[in-house]
């Protein structure tokens, strides 16, 4: 477990910058998205990109602890997405179906 050096470190830094640019694009869609499902989709992708960012940083610095963090973040992102999806779907039901449930 050693930190990268030389050209490998340059490649890893370039990958960090690229994923950061992709994160900016996704956040633009998150702010601009015309409907709630658009925002949920982009929030899901933001979590994945944070996982990718942490993985590349773990490659760059040789710190295996970031792998644990990304595992937990993936889990929490899945739970959040499922909660949002259920909220969107069940809010659309008529009032009678909601009260009978």
């Amino acid at each position, binding site marked *: 477990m050693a930190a990268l050096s030389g050209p490998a470190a340059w490649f890893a830094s370039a990958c960090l910058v690229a994923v950061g640019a992709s994160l900016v*694009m996704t956040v633009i*869609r998150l702010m601009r998205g015309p409907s709630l*499902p658009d925002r949920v989709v982009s929030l899901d992708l933001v979590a994945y*990109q944070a996982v990718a960012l942490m993985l590349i940083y773990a490659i760059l610095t040789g710190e295996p602890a970031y*792998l644990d963090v990304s595992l937990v973040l993936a*889990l929490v992102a899945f739970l959040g997405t499922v909660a949002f*999806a*259920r909220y969107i779907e069940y809010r659309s039901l008529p009032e009678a179906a909601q009260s009978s449930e």
Partner: protein
Amino acid sequence: MLVQQVVGIFLMCAGTLFVVVAGLGVLRLPDVYMRLHASTKAGTLGVALNTAGLAVLHPALGTFTRAAALVLFLLLTAPIAAHMIGRAAYFARDQMGVTIWEGTIVDRMLDHRGGTLFASRPGEDGSSSSGAVS
């Protein structure tokens, strides 16, 4: 050692490329379902390739097991999450104000649901025999 570094860097750069494509797709594609398609498939593959690059560049037993657990978990949960969002965005489209791309020519859920496609779209009331305009 050099081969290991080259393979690891290649995997990491390929994963980054897929993540960037996912972000670009979410920004540029015209409707929710296409954005979902870009985000889920390209994002999952990108994160999985980055994890493989980490496992190649820093080989250790703990890294291997946690990387395998992360990839397995992503492959299990990403399709479920995408299916739930897509289903919610389809059934709640009127309440949420979801629009569909005007070039869409077929909706396979119509038979199942019995309603018409997005109400704002013209020419969808049984006139599908007139040909699929792009």
